[in-house]
């Protein structure tokens, strides 16, 4: 039910380059440190564990960072609501997730962006749940019609009820929301111990680049970790803005920020499952804004994944999310190359599918296009399979010069494993003309309509109880 890609690891960075990036990250941690807006007691506790403090600035001795990171598990499972949907982050597989969290969605009928609602999130999740290429869910659009303080909970409710795939709560960034999220996931999993044994939920917290973490984000991470919910750390640097403009400087800064988060987590919750996340990009140098696509991004993705693996933790690497405003040539080029970079670097988690306009606008059509692109890359990653049977020497001999392979038994045996597109166009020219010269996005739109026309599945047995819990938690939070 889930299609993962085989990791085709082929390091693009030399061993020396990797070592220099890692050393630079450690040096930033030791010399510059990070500003952490944590309560004094927390800061004191971290100092007792070996960090050095000057006001709210914490410096990280390199040996301590290496030692703390070594406590994190290299591989573990992100569970689905049924074992068939589990993901293995052991390094052999690449998984595509939904991306998030856009504030707008491209309206299916008008094609224009508009603020997203819970209904949009529900539609996206229904489609994502049925796509074997989507391995885990994110709130790909925000529940903009819910009161602000409650949005993260409504989003998580949608993830947990509309799909049985693993849910990653990417908008839960405060401890009070994290506590509610843990209660919600425990209800679905069948209790807190069941959640710990089979984490159907994971999370991550972002650094505030350059070189800071909000205290609330770190506290949220600890709430998750204490409940056994995997919690990653994520850096979203912007080269030229919140990070150096050079790829190497940007990657080193990302490395320092993510390792800082992992170190703090491992000092306070040794052994807690975590991951290394980055969606580093470049500032658009002519008007401001973010690029989300470009050759620098490919290197930032490669460096991120390789540095994660050097630190012996799984990598979650921002993949796809083109800067293009529409599902056309630019999105195709940028996302194909972005996927190739993540594949070659062996990134375990790829968020993900469906975003346009530099991660601001979600498109259901783009979700299908990205899923197809992932499938294309997945088939590529399988490799050519060079063995006796597939070398086909017997068939070649049987057919001989000037014959053909059409009716050969060998052809019939293997033709079903030839990759088939759903959205790429391979129809004859005249058919294409007769159909009104459709673009891939037009075919995707038809497919979205078809999928959404199918009757909605019954809500899961826990839906009413979960909804009541969300309402209760929401009342507790300020609107």
């Amino acid at each position, binding site marked *: 039910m889930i299609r993962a890609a085989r990791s085709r690891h082929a390091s693009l960075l030399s061993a020396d380059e990797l070592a220099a990036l890692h050393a630079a990250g450690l040096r930033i941690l030791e010399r510059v440190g990070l500003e952490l807006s944590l309560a004094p007691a927390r800061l004191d506790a971290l100092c007792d564990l070996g960090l050095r403090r000057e006001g709210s600035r914490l410096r990280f001795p390199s040996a301590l960072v290496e030692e703390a990171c070594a406590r994190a598990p290299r591989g573990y499972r992100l569970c689905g609501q049924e074992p068939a949907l589990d993901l293995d982050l052991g390094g052999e597989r690449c998984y595509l997730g939904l991306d998030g969290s856009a*504030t*707008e969605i491209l309206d299916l009928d008008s094609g224009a962006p508009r*603020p*997203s609602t819970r209904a949009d999130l529900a539609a996206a999740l229904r489609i994502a749940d049925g796509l074997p290429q989507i391995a885990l869910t994110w709130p790909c659009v*925000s529940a*903009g019609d819910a009161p*602000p*303080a409650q*949005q993260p909970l409504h989003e998580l409710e949608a993830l947990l009820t509309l799909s049985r795939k693993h849910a990653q709560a990417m908008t839960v960034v405060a401890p009070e929301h994290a506590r509610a999220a843990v209660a919600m996931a425990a209800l679905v999993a069948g209790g807190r111990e069941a959640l710990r044994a089979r984490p159907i939920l994971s999370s991550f917290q972002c650094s*505030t680049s350059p070189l800071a973490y*909000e205290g609330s984000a770190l506290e949220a991470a600890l709430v998750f970790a204490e409940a056994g919910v995997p919690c990653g750390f994520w850096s979203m640097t*912007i080269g*030229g*803005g*919140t990070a150096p*403009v050079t790829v190497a400087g940007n990657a080193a800064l990302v490395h320092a920020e993510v390792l800082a988060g992992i170190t703090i987590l491992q000092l306070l919750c040794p052994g807690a499952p975590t991951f290394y996340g980055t969606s580093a990009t470049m*500032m658009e*140098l*002519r*008007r*401001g*804004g973010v690029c989300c696509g470009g050759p620098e991004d490919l290197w930032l993705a490669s460096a991120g994944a390789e540095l994660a693996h050097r630190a012996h933790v799984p990598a979650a690497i921002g993949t796809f999310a083109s800067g293009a405003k529409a599902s056309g040539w630019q999105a195709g080029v940028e996302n194909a190359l972005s996927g190739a970079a993540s594949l070659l670097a062996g990134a375990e988690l790829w968020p993900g599918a469906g975003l346009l306009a530099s991660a*601001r606008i979600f498109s259901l059509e783009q979700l299908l296009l990205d899923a197809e692109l992932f499938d294309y890359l997945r088939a590529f990653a399988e490799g050519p399979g060079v063995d006796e049977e597939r070398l086909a020497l017997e068939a070649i001999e049987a057919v001989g010069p000037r014959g053909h392979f059409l009716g050969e038994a060998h052809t019939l045996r293997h033709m079903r494993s030839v990759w088939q597109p759903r959205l790429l166009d391979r129809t004859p020219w005249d058919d294409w003309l007769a159909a009104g010269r459709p673009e891939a996005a037009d075919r995707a739109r038809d497919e979205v309509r078809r999928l959404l026309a199918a009757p909605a599945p019954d809500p899961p047995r826990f839906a009413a109880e979960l909804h009541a819990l969300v309402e209760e938690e929401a009342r507790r939070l300020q609107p």
Partner: protein
Amino acid sequence: MSETHATLVELAQKLYAGDAPGVLALCKRALGEGLAAREVLDAGLLAGMEVVGRDFKAGELFLPEIIVAARAMHAGIEELRPLLAEAASGAAAPRTAVLGTVKGDLHDIGKKLVGIMLEGAGFRVLDLGHDVAPERFVEAVRVERPQLVGLSALLSTTMPMMRTTIAELERAGLAAGTTILVGGAPVTAAWAKEIGAHGFAPDAVSAVERARELLAARGA
């Protein structure tokens, strides 16, 4: 057209290159040579900035180059300011902008860009930072009486905080006396109108243009 004084030509070039110490030194030299502050501003600094703006629009200059030019401009204007005020030239009175990313929102690089560009355009900018509560905006506006208030937000969860902040400014009787500009990736002109802001700008460069237009329209 009269020939521009050699010092001013050089000043405009230093400004274009974003050389703040050079701009400062040349402003001093020009004044020492007996040129009026107004002339140094118009034929030196503003003339240089015009070329910067032209080349930026043409895509030849990158934002960081604009930023260093804006900083150099700021340094030059600060040097000239006392003399300009003496000359009682209306446009010279420092215009103040209070800026901030609204409460609950940490995104601040875009707002920082807006601040630098405003400084380059001669504003005195008070940047309240990110995660700024409405009370802090109210307090700052009460104390500073700025001509411009700039609110930034990047999240669907914090866009409503722009409305709250404007409402608080209105409640304190401070909104009518200033001009409120809003921006940030998800913010639109329609949203600005809906929440009672005076204007919206999609990026840092147009933020300056929009601010100027709005202030000119109010005669501020």
